[in-house]
Structures are given as C-alpha cells and as structure tokens.
C-alpha cells in the first residue's frame, strides 16, 4: 500500500533516521529515467547526482566503496570491463577504502567488519569503520535496498548506489544503468569537482589498505577457532577469516 505523506516531500537524507525508516518508494520517491539520477529522493540530472556523490565521497569521513558480487566476479565481459574504471574512481578519492560484499548469507559466526559488509547487518561495518560516505556497486538490487534502509536507519552515512539496473530510491544519491562508461564518468566528475575547488578531506592519493588486504597486513590469519568442527583433523586450510567474539548470528 502506498502510504503517502501528503504535502510534505520525503527527503532521503543521511541518518540515523531511527528504527525502521520507511522505504523511500512508499513515501512517493520515484526511480529516475536514463540520463537522470536521484538526489535525496528528488529526480535530478545524472550529472547533479554524480556531483553530489563525488563531493560526499571527497569530503566526508572514511569514504568507502562496497563492491558486490556483480563487481567482484568477472563472470561476463560486461563486469570485467567495469574493473578498470572502478579502480580509476578509487584512485580519485584520497583515503578511500574498498570493502567487499562478497555474498548475502548471514555469515557465521559473525562478520569481520574490516573485511566485509553484509546485508543482514551492514550497519556493523559502517559503525566499526566510522564510514560517512559509501558507494554500493554490483550488489543485486534486492540486497542493496535491504542494506540501504538499514544504513539510513542506524548511521549517518551518505549512501550512493551506482546501479546497473533501475537505481535505488533508498540511497541518498543514485544513478541507473551504470556500466563501465558511467563509472568512468564518475571518475571524471571526481576530478572535475576537485578542479573546481572541492578540497578532499584526506591528503594524498587513492586507496588505503582495506578489506582483506588490510586484515592480512595486520597479520590476520585464517582458521576457525570456535571448534565448530570437532572433526577438525580433516582441515588444513581452516575456515573463514579471523573472528573476534561477537554476536552469534545463527543462534536459534
């Protein structure tokens, strides 16, 4: 049912909006057409959506790129083509992190918020790394929307969705039909706004150690430690990444 908030226009702003923010769609926010984008729930030009996204990524704390399965795995030529412009974007954002969303399962026993983000509790990764601007890219739309609402509810993160399909109302900024070309265009816009005088929050160039690359550099080692497998003699590789004590995700 469409629960319109008649009169007032619903704005999709960085949170924390509190418990269960509504899906922006049911508040009347519509998806953009090709050539357009969404900014705070308003239809704007693609350029304007990208500019605001660029400024957020350059000026807010701990900007992070969250590549999903459709970005991480080169399963089609289309995805493989997106890699180079993705890293071009990363290099234009001083101090950016890359933290993947490799899959959507509730990871057992708990996620390592430095290594991954997960749609079941994306806020944990945002909080832990104090991320105030992020880009979701290559995440299947259902899981992106689930994620974006939880982030808006519990964090002050400025969310950006570069979507290969129709775009995302629940992001603060979103552009539809994003392929390699539009990613490259985003890199260009990052350069442009810097040239126009937007001063990046962080000095220097590019990507800081992040994701598993960071965990590994800190001496993170694989190996399950909770003894879930008593028949552990079978395994030499061990299981998953290093895990600290935390919420048991799978308690029945």
């Amino acid at each position, binding site marked *: 049912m469409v629960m319109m908030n008649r009169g007032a226009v619903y704005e999709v702003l960085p949170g924390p909006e509190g418990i269960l923010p509504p899906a922006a769609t049911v508040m009347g926010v519509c998806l953009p057409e090709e050539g357009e984008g969404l900014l705070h729930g308003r239809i704007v030009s693609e350029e304007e959506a990208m500019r605001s996204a660029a400024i957020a990524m350059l000026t807010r704390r701990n900007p992070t790129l969250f*590549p999903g399965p459709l*970005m*991480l*795995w*080169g*399963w*089609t030529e289309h*995805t*493989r083509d*997106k*890699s*180079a412009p*993705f*890293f071009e974007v990363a290099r234009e954002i001083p101090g950016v992190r*890359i*933290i*993947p969303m*490799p899959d959507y*399962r*509730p*990871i*057992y*026993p708990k996620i*390592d918020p430095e*290594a*991954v983000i997960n749609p079941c509790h994306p806020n944990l990764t945002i909080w832990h790394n104090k991320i105030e601007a992020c880009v979701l890219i290559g995440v299947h739309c259902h899981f992106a929307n689930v994620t974006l609402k939880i982030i808006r509810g519990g964090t002050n993160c400025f969310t950006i969705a570069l979507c290969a399909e129709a775009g995302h109302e629940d992001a603060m900024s979103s552009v539809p039909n994003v392929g390699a070309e539009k990613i490259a265009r985003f890199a260009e816009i990052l350069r442009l706004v810097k040239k126009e005088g937007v001063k990046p929050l962080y000095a220097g160039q590019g990507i800081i150690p*992040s*994701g*598993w*690359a960071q*965990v*590994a550099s800190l001496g*993170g080692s*694989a190996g*399950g430690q*909770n*003894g*879930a*497998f*008593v*028949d552990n*003699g*079978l*395994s*030499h*590789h061990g*299981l*998953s*990444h290093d895990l600290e004590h935390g919420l*048991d995700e*799978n*308690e*029945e």
Partner: protein
Amino acid sequence: MSLETIRVAPGFKEYLPREYQDLVDDGPFGRERKVSEVGSFKEAVEEHPMCAGCAMTLFIRTAIVALPSLENTVIIGTAGCGRLVLSQTAVPFIYGNYGDTNAVASGLKRGLAIRFKDKPKDVVVMAGDGGLADIGFSAVMHSWFRKERFTTVMLDNEVYGNTGGQESGMTQRGAILKMAPLGKKFEKMDMMGLAKTAGVAYIARVVPTNATRVANTIRKAVLIAREVGPTYVQAYTSCNIEYAIPTPKVMDDARMIEQQRYGFSEYFTDEAKSYWEHYERERRQVKGPDGESED
C-alpha cells in the same frame, strides 16, 4: 561456463575475504575431489553453527566433497539442522518452506533443463527425516513417481532435531521423545521400500562410518540422477543432542546402529545398473585403475 562465477574481476582478489581467495586458488571447482584429499584443498563447506560432534555435519561435509560437479550443482534444503551448514557452503542453496524440497527441486530441475540443454545441472535435495518422510512426503513420493531427475538425500537422525526433539515417522518404534511421551507407537517408515515401489533408479542406505563409502554413494546417486532417473540416499546421521549420545561416542553409536539395523545397502534398477557399469568402464579406460571407486 559456470567456472566464470569464481573468476575474480581484475584487481579485486586482494580485497576478497581469505575464504574466497582460497576457494579461487585451491577450491573444489572444476575437478573431482576424493575424500582422501580432504585437508589438501579448500573445501566448499565453511564454518557453521551445528552442534559439535554432530554426525550430520560429518556426513554433509563428506557428501559435498563427493559432488561430481560442484560448479553445476544446486542444493535444496529445508527447515532442520542440515541447512545450518548448507547455507554456509560455496554452492547455491535454496531454502524455502518446510517440506517443499522435492516439489521445488522438480520445478528447478525442469527450469534448468530448459535453459541449459547441453549442460547437466545437478540438483540435490538434502533434508531431514521429518522434512522428507512426514511433511514433505507427498512431494517426495510424487517426484519419484514422475521420475524427476534429481537426488534426494535424507539426513535421518530419527527425530525432529531442529525443533527440540520430537518423534518423526522415521523414529524407531518405542523411542520415547517429545510428543511421544509413551514411546513411538508405530514402526519406522520404510522409505527405502517406498522408493523401490515408486521406481527410484538408485537407492542406498549408508552410515557415515566410512567416508569413502559415503562419497561413492553420493557420487553414484548424483550421476545416475543426471542420466537415468530419481535417486535416494538415506543416511543415518545421529542426533547426539536429542538421543543423548556423548560427543566422543558419536562414531561408536553409528557403528553399532550400522551393525544392528542400518547396514549399507544399495539397489539399482536395471537401467541404472547398466548405466553405472558403462560409466565405470569408460572411467577406467580414461583414467586407468586409479579411476576406480575408492572402496
């Protein structure tokens, strides 16, 4: 080619969690793995929350190693303990309503057959005794009568483990469990016999006391389902919690039950038998004696 789905896009490898890096470098995809190799490669099964020492865990872990083409397999589970590990395994896992497995598998297998005409897609159901013999009974039987080409694996712990230990149709007569306060009043259901009646191509009963035998049984079941017709593997996977089996004694219990009433047995229809003999012959020719079964 489905192996493309574990090909990392350029530049992303170092950002992937270690488990995925290991799967890419040294995973079970694109080749057959033997249980004797376990420990020397990254397994598809990941950390999971099943009870320590649970025999079902060991069985599933072995069964996953045995799948002949992991990169072309889809697993269907249902409510019950097994899904706790299946949902953490590096193979697409479907989890729908309790007891729907064999109906879902029918639609899935047919759908995949429409889309991938020349490429076999293996569909494997792994569900509890309650899920298959009680609530899912009609769907199981009808998938067999219709000769749907997928494998059904019953994780038979003879109890509803996940809901805290109630009697199931596969419970032994007399067992005192929740909802059977005076002991179960009727016999364990003969699902093996029913499978035969329904014309299942390959039927096997197995206890995870011998990992190689488990692996061979699963491999046979999946390959015969691919080429001939429905297959059914019924595995005794004791619930050490609900039957109060001390963790170090789980394998002793399995050996005892195997000797008393759950001995290994297998049955082939004529068609399945001749397919399997043909398959073994071919395999020996290609691979030499090494290509033989492990047990």
